[in-house]
């Protein structure tokens, strides 16, 4: 019997997205329109993912995404926003996504990712408002000056449930 391989550790950007108000939208407009909304998000996401990025898993109306590169993760996050805004203009319906980005390590479990940094990214998106991209200090440090089209507004150290140390958060906005 072959020895069990240790889980592979990867380092990169972990991104959680969440469609704001999806539950209410479904209640108001019905399952068919909700499904169409998810399909629109899927189409937009597939269009903005660069090489080295993937959808790790779907979480209802949210997604866990993986990027080898933090700068690519931020570019894709804003492309996702723009795509959904365009979709909202066409349909006339309010539609927002919120995004949390954290750069760190994770262990692969099949196609899934697990680990502390995955949990941190999940907590970051909880704090994001509609249309916001929030990033950890680790993400900002990794990106450094590679994204002159963006600036980072500090929100301060944030205490998150289950995370022992405060995480310094920033809002990424177009420069």
């Amino acid at each position, binding site marked *: 019997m072959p020895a069990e391989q240790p889980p592979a550790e990867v380092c990169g950007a972990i991104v959680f997205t969440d469609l704001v108000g999806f539950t209410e939208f479904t209640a108001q407009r019905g399952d068919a329109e909700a499904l169409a909304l998810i399909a629109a998000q899927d189409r937009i996401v597939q269009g903005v993912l660069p090489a080295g990025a993937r959808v790790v898993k779907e979480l209802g109306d949210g997604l866990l995404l993986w990027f080898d590169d933090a700068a690519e993760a931020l570019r894709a996050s804003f492309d996702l926003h723009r795509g959904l805004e365009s979709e909202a203009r066409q349909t*006339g319906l309010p539609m927002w996504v919120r995004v949390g980005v954290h750069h760190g390590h994770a262990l692969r479990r099949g196609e899934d990712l697990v680990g502390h940094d995955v949990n941190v990214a999940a907590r970051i998106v909880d704090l994001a408002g509609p249309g916001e991209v929030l990033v950890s200090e680790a993400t900002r440090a990794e990106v450094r000056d590679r994204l002159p089209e963006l600036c980072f507004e500090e929100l301060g*150290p944030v205490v998150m449930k289950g995370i022992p140390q405060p995480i310094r958060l920033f809002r990424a906005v177009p420069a």
Partner: protein
Amino acid sequence: MTSMAPPPPALPPPSGGGVVSRRPTQLRTTTASGSVKLTAEDRTDVLVEKGGYAVLLDDGTVEVRTTKRSSSLEVRCPSGTDVVIGTASGGVELVGDFGTVSVSSASGSIRTGRVDVADLRTVSGKVGVEECRGRCRVSTKSGTITVTGAGEADLSSVSGRVQIERVDGAVVVRTVSGSTTIGAAGAGPVGVQSISGSIVVRLPPGVRPSIRSSGRRRVTSTCEPGDDVVVDVATVSGSVDIGPGSG
């Protein structure tokens, strides 16, 4: 990789408290579960009255550290101080006149006096702003947002109610199911998007709005149409009522 660098070691005074006898470039603090009360007043130092101690950092920032993980803090600082506060569940109260204020909390409520600029977020607590002279940004999931006065406003809530009594310039509000009431001065565009929340916009008497509706509900307006100010509203199922205020 995942968290702030640990703060430089510093010993708290035996009884907590402490004074930093100079005006800070910024005041920062983080608490896990205790409340935070900051009072800005006519003074030039930072006085920690309860729950922690103050440390002056090289860049002029004063960091207030708690003596216990869940301490409640009470701090006095000069008027106009910029502050950055992070809490998990404790409420935050800012009394007096502050500069740029940034507060993040998981579930605590946030209440501010007069500030230059506000950037406030809490997941489930309510938020109240007395007066924000510049841009007022607030994000909450289920708490209500009440702003008495703001220069500009960018507010979002999922299920909480949003009420702005007076906004001088541009205002953007996004809600899922929370109702929105805005008293706009008519000097900047008004944008409100909601899925099921009702929307009420009040303008000064005589202001003639250009109303754009990109949602699926008909807009009720008692204002004479014109091009004095753009009011852009979108809602899936909430009611929309635009009309003159009491002046």
